[in-house]
């Protein structure tokens, strides 16, 4: 079975809770190697989404993803706004006006999201950014096949280890790159939030099934 607009909306609501719960963790990760705003920015963006979901509930999965994208773009304030905004816009475009997403559509949306992040931020694997979580997630999602929950679980598992892999890296993009060698030894906050979001989406898909 596929994933309808109301499934996507439920997943986004759950993700908003996760972002609020992990606000301090992300702030602290960003404080170590950045400007300490990532957790608050993500919380603010997803909180703004909640009220928009209430006032004008999207009618397709694509419309829900697009609403998330535009909300993040106009409320996040840090690099996560344009990056996640572009990611979810591309994902929305990839799914078009499908009424229901199957596993293949979700994998395709994830790939489009990755392409958007790379186009916007110009980062590569190894730069210590969300790309380090997203690239393995997309590969795993495409390799997994099957239903939405299986695709998202594979993506979330790979994103988690991808995020962990940023710890020893020296940042080559973003604010952390100004720290040079001193950025090594810390988990990248953007890779961590990507991993948290994918885990949350995977949990929602499992529950929906």
């Amino acid at each position, binding site marked *: 079975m596929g994933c309808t607009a109301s499934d996507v909306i439920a997943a986004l609501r759950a993700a908003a809770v996760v972002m609020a719960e992990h606000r301090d963790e992300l702030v602290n990760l960003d404080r170590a190697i950045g*400007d300490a*705003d990532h957790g608050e*920015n993500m919380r603010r963006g997803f909180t703004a989404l909640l009220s928009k979901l209430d006032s004008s509930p999207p009618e397709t999965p694509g419309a829900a993803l697009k609403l998330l994208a535009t909300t993040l*773009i*106009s409320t996040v*304030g*840090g*690099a996560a*706004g*344009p*990056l996640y*905004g*572009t990611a979810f816009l591309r994902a929305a475009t990839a799914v078009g006006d499908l009424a229901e997403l199957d596993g293949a559509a979700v994998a395709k949306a994830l790939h489009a999201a990755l392409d958007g992040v790379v186009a*916007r*931020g110009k980062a590569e694997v190894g730069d210590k950014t969300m790309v380090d979580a997203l690239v393995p997630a997309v590969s795993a999602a495409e390799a997994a096949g099957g239903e939405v929950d299986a695709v998202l679980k594979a993506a979330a598992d790979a994103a988690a280890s991808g995020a962990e892999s940023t710890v020893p890296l020296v940042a080559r*993009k*973003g*604010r952390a790159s100004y720290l040079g060698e001193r950025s090594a030894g810390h988990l990248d906050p953007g890779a961590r939030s990507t991993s948290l979001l994918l885990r949350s989406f995977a949990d929602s898909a499992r529950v929906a099934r």
Partner: protein
Amino acid sequence: MRPVEEPKVGLVIVSHSEMLASGIAELATQMAPQVDVEAVGGTPDGGLGTDYDSVCAALVSADSGAGVVVLYDLGSAKMTAEMAVESADDPARFALVDAPVVEGAVAAAVASQGGAHLRDVAAAAVGASGEAPVQAAPARPALHLVTDPLSVEIELTNDVGLHARPAALLARTVAELDADVLVRYRDSEANAASVLALMGLGAPGGESVEVIATGKDAREAVRRIEELAERGFDD
């Protein structure tokens, strides 16, 4: 009948900080009073960051028909500005330039004030070297040791002094010569090859500057600058 003023290329400065954006805009408009320089910085709640909607609004208000050059400070300001430009009705009217934000803004504003078109204003920003006038150091630069420097005092008889156009004229005058030329005003020196450095001296009309030239064409350089000054820089 006076000729109708051509619209000038506008500028948008996107910074993480409202104070920084405003400061840069203030600096740039000082040298280009007729150019619309919009400062956008910070988040709506007064924090550090960039706000997409404010950038979109600034793009619209800076565009008086001749297009807009957009400068930014750090990475996410660039991404936010990119997205705002992409979502504009006509993205081709906006040039997002990778330039040193302070020097680029000043150079772009001056170019726009002089009537340059969008592409040239953008090029002025990108070409802003960031070369500031050097403080006169106790040890004179090595170039003075090569030959005996020629040094003359020149009075700036024009109203505006070494402002944008006179500075550009001066730089152009010596560019083709085989000479190193320094212009000194009070405690600052500028390489005469750099328009921006000359403007940075802030030498106003009625004041005098010292021109110090070395190299094969030193004499010719001094002669040309004297002639330029006598003509009041054609102002």
